[in-house]
């Protein structure tokens, strides 16, 4: 694999010091080399390596041996993995339709200037103090069927085996994910809404637009790029809800919450089948990249680019 570094290693650049140059010359590529080297060795090569490993038999200890497309065949015929794909799709859709509206409305709310909104905003931030692993552990305790919420108020509705019931657990996870990630996205929206010129609201008011109308015809169009950025992060992020699910349910009960990233981990590092696990990883990479690119196009590629580059 080391040969792969060749095309991206920096070309020999003249490193003559103290020599006057014109500004178009620019600083030497050697200053780019450390970042490029780290990125190549520990991110780019693994990215290509995962495709290579998906064509091998490897138990995680010995030497990988070539296996052709066998892993791909087994991945696409394994009911557990197929179920994981379905779960991941369902999770992506459900987490998006719950998180996005809450985050947008909360962002608009937080952008307001009333005093109590500022106080609320300080408190809304609090979930961001915890790592996803910490959130998972805390909710696991809170949702314990014997000593958690079930035991709190003698309300039958609250006395459920939240994480032990196949019917409930998936929706519980979606709630916990929203709890964990909505604060971040509402911060993005808050920043987006704050940049809308007040004059646009004055105009809408003069036109007699109500609150709902103003939201849909002024606020929402004006935060279009924030919507695209946040949506991309949410959707691609939903392919990586690993820590939380791993800590809270480890895929269970049964395979009820065994989403694709978890399926990859369990197949690779618990069943020691690195080949099929790599094939699953390739699927995750491809899906993630395709979604990012599609959403980029949706927002107008040029504009997204100029936004990314800070123009």
């Amino acid at each position: 694999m080391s040969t792969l570094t060749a095309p991206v290693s920096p070309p020999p650049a003249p490193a003559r010091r103290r020599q006057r140059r014109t500004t178009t010359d620019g600083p030497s590529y050697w200053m780019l080399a450390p970042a490029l080297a780290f990125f190549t060795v520990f991110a780019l090569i693994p990215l290509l390596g995962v495709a290579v490993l998906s064509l091998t038999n490897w138990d995680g200890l010995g030497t990988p041996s070539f296996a052709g497309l066998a892993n791909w065949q087994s991945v696409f015929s394994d009911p557990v993995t197929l179920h994981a794909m379905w779960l991941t799709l369902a999770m992506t859709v459900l987490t998006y339709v719950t998180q996005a509206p809450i985050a947008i409305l909360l962002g608009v709310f937080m952008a307001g200037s009333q005093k109590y909104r500022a106080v609320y905003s300080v408190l809304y931030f609090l979930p961001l103090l915890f790592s996803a692993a910490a959130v998972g552990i805390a909710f696991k305790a809170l949702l314990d069927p014997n000593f958690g919420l079930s035991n709190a108020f003698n309300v039958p509705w609250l006395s459920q085996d939240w994480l032990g019931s196949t019917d409930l657990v998936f929706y519980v996870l979606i709630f916990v994910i929203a709890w964990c990630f909505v604060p971040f996205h509402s911060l993005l929206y808050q920043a987006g809404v704050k940049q809308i010129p007040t004059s646009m609201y004055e105009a809408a008011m003069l036109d007699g637009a109500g609150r709902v109308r103003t939201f849909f015809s002024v606020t929402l169009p004006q935060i279009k790029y924030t919507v695209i950025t946040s949506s991309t992060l949410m959707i691609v992020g939903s392919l990586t809800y690993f820590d939380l699910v791993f800590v809270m349910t480890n895929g269970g009960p049964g395979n009820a919450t065994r989403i694709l990233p978890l399926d990859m981990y369990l197949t690779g590092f618990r069943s020691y089948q690195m080949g099929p696990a790599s094939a699953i990883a390739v699927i995750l990479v491809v899906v993630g990249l395709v979604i990012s690119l599609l959403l980029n196009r949706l927002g107008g590629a040029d504009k997204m680019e100029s936004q990314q580059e800070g123009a």
Partner: protein
Amino acid sequence: MNLRTTGGQAPNAIGGLAATFWLLVTIVPIYYILVTSLKPRQEYFGANPLAWPRELTFAAYGRVLENEFALYFFNSALVTVVTVGVVLLISLLASYVIVRNRGAFAKFSHRLFLLGIAIPIQATIIPVYYLIVQLGLYDSLLALILPGIAFAIPISVLILTNFLRDIPSSLYEAMTLDGASHWQMFRELVLPLSKPAIMAVGIYDALQVWNGFLFPLVLTQSSEVRVLPLSLWTYQGEFAVDIPAVLAAVVLSCLPILAAYIIGRRQLVAGLTAGFSK
């Protein structure tokens, strides 16, 4: 009166109610974590889990601290400081070249880094594991630092290049006329001027590394090199029924971020949303 949110109408009662509901949703689990961590072990099994403790005690915190918490904390701090320090230096250097060098290779590198942003890190963990084992680094802090640096580069370069583009070229030109080398320009112009961006990127990267779970789970094993998020998970196994201690560890693990939030809320928020909000 704020036009943006009230539209010149009466205060938004429905909005206020919904916002208060979400506030409760946000606060109750955090209240639960705090309250439970302050309860004696026996009380956890008996009373209403959301009730205020009949007897406040820091015993659970004591049990966590007796169980190597300081070591895990130190490991996390070390990994975070080294990773973020290296990332900031090499990303700033790279961003300087990308912004100031008009060559095709600089443009190509920039695109390569941008590609890295769209890749789910988790998906490369198997080859990263292979690489770390081959390098003989498995089960060491370096096993966390090296890939950590690589995966923090794309977003750091994105944010820093955005920022560096705003430095007027007249400043560079003035220094060139004075005969300054590119290194001098980097040290005397780029470095001091990009402090706010460095701060924001540093905070963002630090949070990612501090909270990282998958790399430590896969790339380390022994307790000597255990970092905090992983320790929370192992505490959960070790303490089993001692939930107050598990949640005390959760509270302790977020103290540095809480401190940052209290000291510099603005910078922390700017760091979190750096590069995403425009």
